[in-house]
Structures are given as C-alpha cells and as structure tokens.
C-alpha cells in the first residue's frame, strides 16, 4: 500500500528497521506521491542504500539494483542483444531464407527481401533486459536502486535521463519501450564528482547527514535491544566526538553498531579510556586515525 502521509512513512520505515528523520520521511513521501526519482547524497555509511531497501520492504516491492562503476555501459545497464540466440536462429531458419529470396531476380533484390525480414532478428525475442529495462518491464512494480551513480562516466548519465523523466527507454533498433509499471527510483552518490544539471533537474534531492545523537541511539537500540541505556549514551557521545577529529575516515552508523556489539561482547558496563583504547580498531579503520584518536582518549570518553 502506498504511503499516506509523512508520519506514515516514518512509522512504516521504523517497522522495516529503518529510523528515518523527519527530513528523510518528508522527501520520501513527496517524491513517491509524485513519482519523482530521489537523488540521495551523504557521507559513506549513513544509510543511503539501506533507505532504498527499507522503502522496498514497506511497499512489498522487489529491489532491482544497479551498481555503477567507471566503464559501465548501456549493454550492462539497459539491454543487450542475445547474439548467440540470434546466430542459432539464423542457422535454424537457413532454409526458410532460401524460400524468401527464391524468386528474387537480382542480388540486390534478394538483399532487400532479407532486409525486410530484419525486424524478426531485432525484436524483443532477442533482447536481454538489464536492470534499468527490467525495472520498467516488470509486471509487479519494483524499487530501482542506482547505487553510487557518481562513479559512472558522464556519458552514462545520458542514458539515465530518458528513464528518469518518462520511465521509458528507447532502443534504436526496436523503438521506445513504454513502462509496464512505474518503479520507485533511488540514486545514491558519495559526491565523487558533481552530477549534471540535467540529471539533477529530473530528481528530487535528499542529503543524509550523520544522524543526530538521538536518532543514532534509536538505530543502535533497534539493532541491539539488550544494550544498557547509560552505556549507549556514553558510546554515542564518544562517536560524535570522534567524528569531530581530523581523521581520514569518520566512523559511520555501521561502525557504531559494531562498536556497541563489541562492547556488549566484552561485557562492558561503562566506557573508560582503557575500554575505548582496546576497542578503537572496531571504530577506526586506519592506523593513522587510531593514532590520532589515542592522543585524546580522555577527551573522547568525556
């Protein structure tokens, strides 16, 4: 069932194990109600991909995911001709070809006759849909997740434009494929490069920042209900302070969850300089960062 209101989005996402801020819920609600793709930006690990999955869970839709990378092209993203199948069919209908050109007077007439049959070879039968095409041809509506779109080449963005504005795709040999169902589209970006204006115009924009301490506590509580409130509070405060340090990779939500899990496993009751020092490598991935953090342990524990 579609979302009914901003509050409804927030409530149902929570049932799908996703704690959404008011901002996230508002943008999701208005985008879905008007069938607009959402372009999500934000630092790594703040739950961009997860949001798309959670929305799919709420709507009971399947997720079709397209992971972008440098060099991704239309034959991997949109559609591909099934050459092997085409060849096989050519072999099988060889005799029929003879009958088609039997009464041709000249070679060029024969070629014309074959050309008039060309459609048979460039038809839906030989098309293998890739994620983008799958998403609009699916009989049940889906959630289409175009992940890390900033990693793709600028040319690739051009393929997306038609899809994002009209949910249709034009295949040169066949023509325009209209959507069977309209997918909910999410695009995520880590800001490796700026997206083109044309793409941005077609989307509605959502920036997900590191969560507020309250929201982050809710997230950890959701994943680890047995954690003690006092420890949780201390831990989230510490994480917030670590994020303020001059470090290479700031800890994200999954690191908070991992840390909480580690602290639980160690049976920690209270955060002290020693426990932080012991478990710091769960939170920080780079040796250099750990070194920086160790210099201000007391400050982190607070």
């Amino acid at each position, binding site marked *: 069932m579609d979302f009914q209101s*901003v509050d409804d989005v927030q409530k149902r996402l929570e049932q799908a194990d996703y704690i959404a801020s*008011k*901002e996230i819920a*508002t*943008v999701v*609600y*208005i*985008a879905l*109600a*008007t069938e*607009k793709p959402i*372009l999500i*930006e*934000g*630092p790594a690990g703040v739950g961009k991909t997860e949001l798309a999955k959670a929305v799919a869970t709420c709507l009971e839709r399947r997720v079709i995911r397209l992971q972008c990378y*440098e*060099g991704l092209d239309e*034959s991997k993203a949109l559609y*591909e*001709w099934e*050459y*092997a199948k085409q*060849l096989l069919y050519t072999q099988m209908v060889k005799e029929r070809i003879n009958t088609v050109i039997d009464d041709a007077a000249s070679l060029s007439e024969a070629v014309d006759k074959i050309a008039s049959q060309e459609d048979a070879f460039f038809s839906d039968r030989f098309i293998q849909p890739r994620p983008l095409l799958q998403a609009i041809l699916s009989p049940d509506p889906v959630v289409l997740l175009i992940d890390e779109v900033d990693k793709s*080449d*600028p040319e690739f963005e051009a393929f997306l434009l038609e899809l994002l504005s009209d949910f249709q795709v034009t295949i040169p040999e066949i023509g325009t494929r209209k959507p069977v169902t309209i997918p909910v589209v999410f695009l995520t970006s*880590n*800001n*490796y*490069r*700026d*997206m083109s*204006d044309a793409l*941005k*115009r077609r*989307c*509605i*924009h*959502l*920036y997900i920042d590191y969560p507020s301490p309250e929201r982050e506590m809710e997230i950890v509580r959701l994943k680890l209900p047995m954690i003690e409130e006092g420890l949780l509070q201390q831990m989230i405060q510490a994480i917030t302070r670590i994020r303020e340090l*001059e470090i290479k990779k700031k800890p994200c939500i999954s690191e908070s969850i991992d840390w909480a899990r580690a602290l639980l496993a160690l049976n920690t009751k209270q955060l002290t300089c020693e426990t932080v020092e012991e478990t710091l490598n769960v939170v920080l991935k780079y040796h250099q960062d750990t070194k920086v953090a160790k210099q201000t342990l007391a400050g982190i524990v607070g």
Partner: protein
Amino acid sequence: MLKILTGFAACCRAFDLRVSTSEVLDTARHLALVDPLDPREFKLAVRANFAKSRRDQSRFDYLFDLFFHGIRTDSDDALSPGIDRITQGLRKTLSDDPMEQALVDFLDNDPLAFIDQIHALHTMEERPQKIFKSNMGQLSSKLGVMLQINSIKSKIMALLDQGDHGEPDNAGALREHFRERLDRAFALATEEPREHNDALKEKPRATNEKNQLKDKPFSNLTPLEVIEMRAVIERLVKKLKDQVGRRFAVKNRGVIDIKKTLRNSGKFQGVPLNIAFKNKPPRKSSIVALCDVSGSVWSGARFMLTLLYSLQECFARVKSFVFVADLVDITGLFQDLDINDAIEKALGDDTINRNAPTDYGNSFQQFKHDHMNVLNQKTTLIILGDGRSNYLNPQATILGEMREHCRRIIWLTPEQINTWTTGDSEIASYKTHCHEVRTCMNLNHLTEFIEELVL
C-alpha cells in the same frame, strides 16, 4: 503561493542557484502534499527541489532565510500608509543611480533588483589593473553601497520627523521598521554565503625530519641537490611506467568477451577479426595543471611538471599553465623541447615575470576568458600554489565556475594545513570549490600524489 515561489526562484537565480521552471512547478505539486502549517515541511519540500546538491544547500538556506524571514516582512497594516508615504517621499529625492533606486524598491518590499545588484557585486571581476594592483574595485563598490544606505537612512529619519503618523506611537514603529530593513540591506551587502564542501578531501602530509632528499622541502634544495633529484625522479618515472604498462597490458589478455567479439564480427561477415576482452583498461584522464611559479613555490612546480610530462603517455592529454601575476600557456614548449629544457625555458625570466606580486584572482580570470575550453568532464584540474595572493581579490567564484567545467579540482599546496588560514593565504576561500586539497612540499608527497593519479 505560486507567486511567492516564482519570486523566490527569481531571487535564487539572482544568486546563481539555478532553478528551472519545471522545478518550480514540481515544488508547487509537492507543497500540496505537505502540512501547510508546518514551516519545517514547507522548507524541506522547497529545498528538495531548489537545491540539488549538498554544495547548494548552504546557499539555499541563506537565501531562504533572507526571503521568508528577512526581506519580505509582512508588516502590519497599520504601518503601511506610513511606509508608502516615506518611500514615496524618498523617490522624489532620488538620483538615477540604479543602486539607489534598487534600495528604495527593497524598502518597498520589492527586493529583486537590489539582490541582483548585490550579487553582481559579490561576484564582480576585478578590472585588469596594470600598474597599481589592489583589491579596491570590489571593496570600494561595497563601500559605496554602505554610504548610500547611510544617506537613505538619514533621509528617512528626516522624513519621519516631518509628517504626522496617524497615531502617535506609529512613529516609533515606523522608525524600527526602516532600521530593520536597512540593517538587512547592509548585511546583504557585506556578507556572502559560502558553499558546503563536506566531500572535500583534505590530505595533510606528515613531514619526516630525516634529512633525506625525499623528505627535504623543495624550497630548501641546493642547486646540486636539484641535479641529484633528477636522477631520483628518473628512477621513479621508470618504476611508475612499468606499473602503468602492466596495467594497460591486461587489455589484450584474459577472458574473451564473447558478446563483444560477436558484435564486432558483424562488420566482417561473422569472422571474429576484432577480439574483445573482458578486462577493459582503465580510462586515461586528461590533465590540466596550473602552477604558481612565484618565488616561494616555483621549485615544487618544476618537479611536478617534470613528472607529469615524463608520464605523459599515462594521460590522455596534459596541458599546463604557469602564472604569477599573469597566466601563460606553456603546453607548446613541451611539444617542441626536451622536458628539462622546456621547464628551464618556462621558468626562465623571459616567459613570465617571476618577481611580480602573485595574483591568483587575475590569473584565474585570464584562464576563464582564454582557456576555459580546455576543461571538460574528463579533465582533472591540478592547481599548485600556496594561495597567497598578496591581499588582492581572490575571485574564488571563478574557481567555482571552473569546477563546473571539469571532473575534479585538486589543489596542492607547499604548506602544512595549519598555516592555510594565516596571513594572505586564500586557501580557505578556494577550498570550498576543490574536490581535494593536499600538502605537497617534498618528493615523498609528490610521489604519493602522482601514484594516486596514474594508478
């Protein structure tokens, strides 16, 4: 509602936030969906349509506050006859200076002309100054606006003292109203919104004190050591070329891409002449380098240029410029001469006056006017310099325009991060437009950077 939205859109456009008509219409549709009485939902819906990247969000917030809380006060009706009387009185005394007119329109609840003028002021390019350089163009125009605001203020006060204001306590309220509006105008003229740039990578580099050649700051090398460096760099180039060569060699090895091969064979009656492989070589990027070659930094530029050009075949294209007070395109030198000769020539005094005061703003401006077309979506723009611009107008908005034309901007500075904000360093204003800022003061840093660039 639509009228307010289009007004706001016009205001955003005046501040270079591109909002298209379709986006205004989308916003209107979206506003129908949210709770009309909840100001947060209102702002979120507008922002999701008007600011399409994190970079634009801070500018949007600034404009939103201005527009909905600042410049369009829904003044209470008791005051409006008084306001009308004063603004009309003001209009009689006006000169035909556009700024003055815009200011009165602003007081009369029509802010767009004023916003336009102010924005032009913030982004104005310094006129080329040949003999005496200064930052005065922009500063003095700003000063002019402040003086105009003051003179209008005293005119208003005079007008207020003359007439009768209906009820006695209106005078105070009117005075308060105009003071607030004028303060707004003043703030607009003096502050500027700055973009968020959280995706910026800052890479400060540690320096080892071991006095090895690799760790020694470029600026401290003796002439003998410079020659020694050449040998070190040659070895480095060889090593890198080997690695890159191996990387591009995978092109013709590995798993055959059947589909691609079949597709290619279509052209040759099904004979697979042109075999495609699954591992594609990575795409080569094209490089545009802008090097500050003034006294303090030129030694770094020489080594970076040597490396870039020695590794030319690892890039699709390399173009290079040097600047001090003016910008010079030195790409041609490298086509005609051997690398070392080209560099000596580029840094030789006949190409560029190295003793002039460095002027980043002017150099950027020249780049914009003469060379913007060398940038495209595949270019990495490398700027090498300390960003010390002798207190001349930094014209950082031009760097912002350059960003829109290229794929990435990487700024290399020969200083440690903690000195970036001291003295005349403009790195702080430039870095809002860069994708990456890193320290590059010795060979170690440079090697690391070049490795990341080519591998």
